[in-house]
Each structure stands twice: as structure tokens, then as C-alpha cells.
């Protein structure tokens, strides 16, 4: 059988394929717009009844009371406190691991430890919540009692610490990538001047990789801000102005989840209030994404 190789193939299929591929990619924009639209439009209904000033300045959050008060501050203090604890755990540990793996460990050690550590980020957060509530809290209660600190069974300390363990791989892995991207010649220059490995690591490699390291920390931080289940399970759900990590407190995310666990009557102020809290969360995370982006451009070292 003879085939006519000069015959042109149909071109419409190529165009259709390209259209399909574009539609799939454009879905990403649609999702972002969908999130922003829903959160903003439902919040608008909320702010039609509650003034923005009250929302931003009141220090009481009691949407379920007869005389409801809507001040976002208690939820924000809860979020900041748990995030602060998480960073206090994850930044030193993550950076130690990153510097050790990038500057001191051999390639085989690095190839084994890095993926194993990444499993920490794969553990379902509800499992972490269980761990924080039933393992870390009793442990901390035992440790803190001799110092006269009675840790309540719901507290932001253990929730934050477990969150910190969860984000170690984000900080360690991405910082290590940034450090390894520092050219070898810079290290060799430093060694040639008589510096030890540790001196080279802290005075040459880390400063050169600072944009990547800061980006990694901010990414970990925005994970901590958005984390829900650990704080819902272990942090307690009492919205109060948090001043110490040993207190219990509600985060923005914990409040949203708590309301959703009950009946969610459409169109009520209570229903709209979770979207207002969601808007605060969205603004917060987008802000940190933007700061990370800006820092990376501002402090990028080009080689």
C-alpha cells in the first residue's frame, strides 16, 4: 500500500491541543480569582454590619455571644504566638541542619538525610495535632512543673513547637539548596586565606546565600501562619489576647475551622465572619509572599 507523504496533516488538532493546554494553565488564575472573589465578597457583607475600625481595634472576639464583639486582635495574637514558637524551633534547627549538610557532610550522608527529613513535611497535620496534644504537652508539663509553671492541657507552646518540627524540612532543604548554589571558588578563596570550614560557612557561604535562606524562612513562616489542624487540636479554641506561649488561644485558622465544625447557616453574620477572618489570613500570607519575593530580588547575589 502506498502512502502519500506529501499530504498535509490536519492543523486544527495542533491548535485545539494548544488551546486545551492554555485552558489548563489558565485554571491557576481562575482559582486565585475564585479565592479572592469569595473571600472579599463575603467579607464585604460582614463589614456592612461590623465597622472596619472595630474589626481592627477591638480586643475581644466573641462572635457567638448574645452581644457579639468582632475584634480580630485576639486571633492575630494567637497566630503570631504560635508562629513565633514555631520559628524559634525551626530556624535554629533548620539552619544548623542546612549548614551541616551543605558544608560538612559527605555527599552520601546528604543524599540520605535530606529526603528522610523531607518526610517530616509529609506527615498529615492532624497526626501532628494528636502528637502535640498527647505526647508533647504532657512531656512539657513534666519539664515545666519544677519551674513553677503549670502548663494547661491546651496551649500554644506545644502546638507551636510541633509546627516548628513540621517546617524544619522547608527551612533546611531550601536553605541548603541556596548554600550549595554558592560557587566553589568562593569557598576555596576563603580556605586559601586560612579560614576554617566553620569560618567559611558563616562568613562566606551564609552571607552569599542570604536571599535564599531568608526566602526559606519566610516560606516556613507562611506555612506556620496558615496551619490549622495542629492548633485546632492542641492549641485550645479560646480567643483571647495571648501574651505568653503557655496560654491557650485561638488562631485565625482555628477560629474558621471551629465555626465550620458546627452548623454554618448561610448568610448570617457568623457565616460572614469566617470570611472576614479568612481575608485577614489571605492578606497576611500574600504580604509575606511579597516580602520574600522582594527580599530575594533586593539581596540577590549574582555570580
Amino acid at each position, binding site marked *: 500500500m502506498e502512502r502519500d507523504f506529501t499530504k498535509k496533516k490536519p492543523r486544527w488538532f495542533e491548535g485545539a491541543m494548544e488551546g486545551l493546554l492554555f485552558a489548563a494553565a489558565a485554571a491557576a488564575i481562575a482559582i*486565585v480569582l475564585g479565592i479572592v472573589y469569595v473571600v472579599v465578597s463575603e467579607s464585604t457583607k460582614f463589614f456592612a454590619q461590623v465597622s472596619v475600625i472595630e474589626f481592627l481595634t477591638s480586643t475581644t472576639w466573641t462572635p457567638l455571644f448574645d452581644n457579639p464583639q468582632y475584634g480580630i486582635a485576639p486571633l492575630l495574637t494567637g497566630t503570631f504566638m504560635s508562629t513565633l514558637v514555631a520559628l524559634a524551633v525551626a530556624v535554629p534547627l533548620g539552619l544548623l541542619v542546612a549548614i551541616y549538610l551543605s558544608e560538612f557532610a559527605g555527599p552520601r550522608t546528604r*543524599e540520605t538525610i535530606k529526603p528522610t527529613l523531607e518526610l517530616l513535611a509529609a506527615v*498529615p497535620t492532624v497526626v501532628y495535632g*494528636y502528637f502535640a496534644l498527647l505526647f508533647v504537652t504532657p512531656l512539657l508539663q513534666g519539664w515545666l512543673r519544677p519551674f513553677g509553671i503549670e502548663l494547661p492541657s491546651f496551649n500554644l507552646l506545644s502546638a507551636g513547637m510541633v509546627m516548628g518540627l513540621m517546617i524544619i524540612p522547608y527551612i533546611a532543604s531550601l536553605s541548603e539548596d541556596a548554600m550549595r548554589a554558592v560557587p566553589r571558588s568562593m569557598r576555596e578563596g576563603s580556605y586559601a586565606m586560612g579560614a576554617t570550614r566553620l569560618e567559611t560557612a558563616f562568613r562566606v557561604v551564609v552571607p552569599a546565600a542570604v536571599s535564599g535562606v531568608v526566602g526559606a524562612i519566610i516560606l516556613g513562616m507562611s506555612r506556620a501562619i*496558615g496551619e*490549622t489542624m495542629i492548633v485546632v487540636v492542641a492549641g485550645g479554641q479560646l480567643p483571647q489576647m495571648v501574651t505568653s506561649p503557655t496560654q491557650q488561644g485561638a488562631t485565625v485558622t482555628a477560629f474558621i475551622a471551629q465555626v465550620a465544625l458546627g452548623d454554618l447557616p448561610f448568610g448570617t453574620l457568623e457565616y460572614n465572619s469566617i470570611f472576614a477572618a479568612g481575608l485577614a489570613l489571605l492578606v497576611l*500570607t500574600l504580604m509575606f509572599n511579597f516580602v520574600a519575593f522582594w527580599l530575594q530580588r533586593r539581596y540577590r547575589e549574582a555570580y
Partner: protein
Amino acid sequence: MTAIDAQQVRDITAHPPGLAARKFKDSAFIIWGIVATIIGLGTLVTLVTDLFTDGGHRLTMAFFSSFPSSEPAQAGILSAWVGSLLVIFTTALFAIPIGILAGIYLEEYAPKNPVTSAIEIAVNNLAGVPSILFGLMAVGIFVQFLGNPNRWFGFLPQGFREAGADLFGQSILTAGITLSLLILPVIIVATREAVRGVPQEIRHAALAVGATKWQSTQHHVLPYALPGVVTGVIIGISRALGETAPLIMIGGLTFVAFLPITRPGDATFETIGVLDEYGAAVDPAATETVRIAHDGVVVLPDFTELPVQAGETVDLPHGSTGQSVATLGDSIGSMNPAHWLGQEFTVMPIQMFNWTSRPQAEFLEIAAAAGIVLLFITLLMNGTAIYLRYRLRKSIKW
């Protein structure tokens, strides 16, 4: 020039002062690095050990084949794992094709223009959006908007509105779509990296012998990129499997004692006519002619039982209930997605969360047991992905 001060002359071949101390700091730092690594890895080990000591003894066959119950000794995760399976299946159905196609577009097709940069910014930002915000979006769009067609789409024909109300709302379909949006960035980024890793020569060779752009992509680029793509898909799916918050938002139930699909031997109930909230017929005088599909019993409104046989045609008053036992055929029929996509559901993380938030110690034990199952599956999937990535790096030498 004055004479060289004797004090300034140093033997440069000698060790500089303080070197021993500086070298010691080097070794001390290595110990700190190892300690930090051990804390990280130790967390994983402690987590697994803790779950096993708390709940290991509850991992029996009965645990997998029982519904949740108010009696912790009899409670199990049957409805939870079946629900997780169906939700994840739906998630994969949406996320895998859209994610891969979007990744290919951005790497192979996208022109350098503002639209492309907008898509890239969207993908990068989505990866950092907290999962609970995806839940809020799902509540607004899938549960309240698409799930209440009577409120918003009054102009559509009745049939459309009923189908919409059946499928959306607090359903498996809503959960599947929501999770697929959540893991889309993971799959897109993995696909892009895998496609970028395929050398340019392969595309040139295909184009040189007359392949079109899509033919070159489909037959030459994609096969080489596949292991990388699969790695991303596995990581994305395992993330969806462990997600709790967005599913709580859209109203995943915490107590489900039924399965979205029917098992052979399950009792089935079917009511006849329009019933009020107490289960009585709105119009007791009305009757309906029904053709019986299975042998069984019909309970009439006055509670008398009427045995029926398959193939019979009977007149039944409204308010009657047909009771029979599901056959294998019924069971296979119920696997049709049209049957289960619109049903309410629970998933394993929600079940575990529910048990964790109860005060009784027995419930905490089964929460731990559910945690072991969840952890085992997610770590297994991630382990597979890591192994694939490792093999990939070893085997492909361009």
C-alpha cells in the same frame, strides 16, 4: 625603612596562633549539626513509636471493616477509608490531567507575555495559600453557589437544578474538586521541572523529521519526563490524603455509618411517594404502581409486611417502604460515579480528628490507630516518590 622589628618576624610555616581552638570549633559545630539532624529524624521515630504504643493493639481486621460507633471497642474506619478512597479518586481525576497539561503549556508552549507571567505568579502564589482558604472558596462556590441551584439558577430547567443540587453541596465531588485545586501547584511545578530536564536535542530531532509540536511533546518529551511527573503526582496525592481543614470547611461529616457504595448483602430501603418529616405520606390516599426488582418485603404505612417477588407489579400506597438485600449486581451498579459523587462523606483525617477531640481514653486509642494507617500510607507514598527521584537521577545520563 627602619630595621625590621624582631617581634614582627613570624615563622609563617608555623601554625597561626589559636588554630587549635578554631579547629575545635569546627568539630564542635559538626556535633551541633548532627544533634539538630537527630532531633529532626528523632521526631519521626518518636511520632511513630508514640502512635504504636497508644493504638497499635487496635489495628485488627475488625477496625478496617467496622463503622464508627459511640462504643469505642466496636468503632472502626470502614466509612472513613472508603470515603478517602472515593475522594482521592475524584481528586486524581481532576488534578492529574489539568496539572500535567498546565505544566506542559508553561514549559513548552507559553509565549513570553503578560498572560504567561500572570499564570506563573498565580501558580507560585497558590502554592503558598493556606489550605483552609481553599476550603472557604469551596464553601462559597461549590457548597453555597452550585449546591443551591434553586437559590441562584431559578431560570434553569428543573432537571438541571436537581442534578446540580445532587452533585454539589457537601458531597464527594465538592471534596474531590477542592483537593484537586489544592494540589494543582504541586503537580504543575513537578511537571515543569521534569519537562525542562529533557534536552533540547530530542525536540529538535523530532521536529526535524516532520513531527508537529504536539507530536514531539507527546511522543518524545513526555515519555522522558514521565518519572518526574509521576513523582509530583504521588506527592500531591499523598498531600490530599492527609488534608483535613478544607474538608471540615465544606462539611465532611464526623459520624458516617453508611457507605457511598453498596456492598452485596447490605439491607436497602426505598420509600414510595413524597413523605413529610415524620416519614408519613403527605397524601395518604395516593398510590403508585411499582415493578419489584428484588425479592424482599414491603412495609405498608400501617406496618403490615407484604412479601414480594422479583418481577411482580404491585400498587403501593404512598408511605410504603421496600426492604431488600443488595445483590452483587446492585453493588456493582452503585460503583457508578453518578451514584456516589453526590453523596455525603467522611475521610480518614476527619475521623481521626473527631476521635482525638473526645475526652475518653478509648477514643484516643482508636485515634492513634487511625493515625498509624494515615501515617503509613503517606510515608509509603512519599518514600516511593523519593525512591523514584533517586532512580531517575542515577539512571538517566543524557
